[in-house]
């Protein structure tokens, strides 16, 4: 026997009510926020004044005194460059400071320079150059742009440029012995590779700090030996050396004059050590400037022969190109000329070679291979 619908609803409603009274009514709940309106107490006069209707200004019928608006600026130029242009970084907007100063008027654009009707060419082009007969051959400082095998820090301004590092020596007034005055010298500043604008920031990055020493202390140079007491003994060996040199020159002259094959004397004694050869190689490298060579000459290896005097100076007349590989004859000529300049310039004071091994270094063939120098 079922209950009537009204009874069911009544039972459910009473059940909910009992449940709410039993549980819900005892639970705390947040009070609803009360709307609060701040008010100000004003007087009746003030209220009357505030509620008074504001009169609209009278508008004259005829718009006298109207001035035409200033010419609107031209619409911003549309970047009409059709080529795909990469995105530019957009800088963040910065607040514009308000300044009460009057805005200066834009300067009037200058009138266009006249378009040339016809180009004023200097234009009587120079005639075909004429050769000038050869002459008989008779007897500011930029910052270091130098790229060298070993990087060198810039020397102080007053230091003279030289391959040797020497401190300045000025004679002491109270010194007992006579002292030689010596100017301070240091090698020219150099980098060991080309630094472009694109990678200079990489260069500028400081190296990570390390606790270990980066370089070892260089041993001090050996003090010079005192001059020997008896001069006569030292003078003696020079005589045969001069004789030997003159004999070599005579033999060379005879060979150049076509006097038949002259057999070079077999070198005797121990050959040059690896260190001695390296020292010679380094001394020539310092003067081998490839900065002004063409890219083709920079691909050309040349073999250059030279004979040296006993004092280590190259005999200029004996410098000759033996062979070349990798480039045209023109490129080989440029490469050879750079090599010749290197030998003459750095040998001007004599290469540092052991005089007792002269037979071994009297004739030298130097191979100048610029492969490593192409893009340093």
């Amino acid at each position, binding site marked *: 026997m079922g209950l009537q619908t009204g009874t069911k609803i009544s039972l459910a409603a009473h059940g909910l009510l009992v449940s709410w009274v039993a549980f819900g009514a005892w639970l705390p709940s947040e009070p609803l926020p009360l709307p609060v309106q701040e008010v100000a107490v004003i007087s009746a006069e003030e209220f009357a004044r505030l509620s008074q209707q504001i009169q609209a200004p009278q508008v004259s019928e005829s718009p006298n005194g109207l001035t035409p608006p200033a010419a609107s*600026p031209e619409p*911003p*130029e549309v970047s*009409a460059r*059709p*080529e*795909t*242009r*990469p995105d530019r970084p957009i800088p963040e907007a910065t607040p514009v400071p308000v300044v009460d100063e009057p805005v200066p008027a*834009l300067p009037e654009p200058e009138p*266009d320079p006249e*378009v*040339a009707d016809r180009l004023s*060419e200097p234009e009587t*082009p*120079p*005639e075909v*150059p*004429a*050769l000038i*007969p*050869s002459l*008989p*051959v*008779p007897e500011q400082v*930029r910052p270091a*742009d*130098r790229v*060298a095998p070993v990087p060198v820090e810039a020397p102080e301004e007053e230091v003279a440029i030289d391959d040797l590092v020497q401190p300045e020596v000025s004679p002491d007034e109270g010194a007992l012995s006579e002292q030689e005055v010596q100017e301070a010298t240091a090698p020219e500043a150099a980098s060991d590779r*080309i630094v*472009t*604008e*694109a*990678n200079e920031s990489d260069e500028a990055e400081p190296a990570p700090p390390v606790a270990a020493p980066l370089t070892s202390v260089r041993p001090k140079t050996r003090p010079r030996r005192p001059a020997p007491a008896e001069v006569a003994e030292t003078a003696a060996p020079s005589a045969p050396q001069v004789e030997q040199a003159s004999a070599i020159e005579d033999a060379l002259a005879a060979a150049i004059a076509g006097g038949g094959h002259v057999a070079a004397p*077999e*070198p005797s004694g121990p*050959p040059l050590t690896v260190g001695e*050869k390296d020292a010679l190689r380094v001394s*020539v490298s310092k003067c081998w*400037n490839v*900065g002004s060579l*063409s*890219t083709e000459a920079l691909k050309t290896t040349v073999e250059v*022969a030279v004979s040296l005097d006993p004092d280590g100076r190259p005999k*200029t007349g004996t410098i000759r190109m033996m062979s070349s590989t990798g480039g045209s004859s023109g*490129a080989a000529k*440029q490469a050879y*000329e750079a090599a010749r*300049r290197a030998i003459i*310039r750095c040998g001007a004071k004599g290469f540092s070679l052991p005089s007792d091994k002269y037979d*071994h*270094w009297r004739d*030298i*063939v*130097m*191979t100048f*291979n610029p*492969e490593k*120098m192409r*893009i340093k």
Partner: protein
Amino acid sequence: MRRNLTALLASLLVAAAPLLTAGSAAQAQNGPLRIEITDGVIEPLPYAVPSFLAETPAAAELANQITRVIAADLSGTGLFREIPATAHISTVSDFNAPVRFADWKAVNAQALITGSVSVNGKQLTVRFRGYDVFADNELGAGLQFSGTTDGWRRMAHKVADAIYSRITGESGYFDSRVVFVSETGPKNDRRKRLAIMDYDGAGVQYLTNSSALVLAPRFSPTGDRVLYTSYESGFPQIHVLDVGKVQRRVLSADKGIMSFAPRFAPDGNTVVYSQAEGGNTDIYTMDIATGARQRLTRAPSIETAPSYSPDGNQIVFESDRSGTPQLYVMPATGGEARRISFGKGRYGTPVWSPRGDLIAFTKQSKGRFHIGVMRLDGSEERLLTASFLDEGPSWSPNGRVIMFTRETQGANGRALLYSVDILGRNLKPVRTPDGASDPAWSPLQK
């Protein structure tokens, strides 16, 4: 027994004697000492150029000016360094007198240039000789140029070109011109017109007025004509301008079709350019005489900035077919293109070197713009510059130097021309009277 042992040892020694001799001979040095030099230095070559002698009273001023232009040309390359006159020991008082090489060696002048100038009415004659100081001889034969006094700057450039060529072994680039877009006025009202000048910024002349926007001028292979894009009709269209007569005409006059980024083929008779039609941009060629066109690319992406190889057989161009702008090379008749740029970033405006061995380009990477060069296969990429905005490289006639546009940042930013050599050295601004962009270097003048 002992006797037998002694005899055996003796025979062994006799047998070994030749071997020992051979060993010691091998240890000794045969022939000249041989060494290999692989490390050198790269630095400017010091040279001296005493003021050229004035052979006539009227030539005094010109002689000095010509000398200064020669020195500026040579030192401006970054390959040479002038030894100032105050350091000279010798003076040159007679053009035909022998040179005292020792005096020039003492100041470390490795090259010496002497010359004389004579003026007879409007006729100008310049003679010069170059010397390899440390070799005690001349750098090639002396030369004499004749012309008019109006052309004294060109004669100075020609002397500098000859000296440059004799020392470096490659042709010079001093007797050349540059066409560019001159820019005046504030950024929101910038006026642009075509202008032409000597490579060093001297003698600026204007080729168009500023009534219409002009872009991207390009010289013909002979330097007598210039292609450029103009918005004169409100639409980008290609014009060709006769440089001598300053006469121009429209090459592409199709309404509704945008054509831009033109460049001459090495034969001077064909133009390669980009054409935008229906929202798609592809590369076309046009015969200048007949107007006949040929479409080279057919891709839904943007293909632009084409540039011929010096032999005219290939074209390098920019395309975003891979998603970002990259460089591609295709045959000059069209066909399959191969991508050559693979570095991180966006590549654009490729230009083939006149030597044919390198491609210059603009690259954007990490918010910076670079001018760079790479081999034809994309290898050995080398970034030469870095700034807020560098773009639009153009090669010098000898392929040793690149000129480009550098724009500075901010509301007052302006565009200027800069040059840099292909090793990234000697970066410097090019003097122009106003702002300047889109440089195009001419070939050497005849």
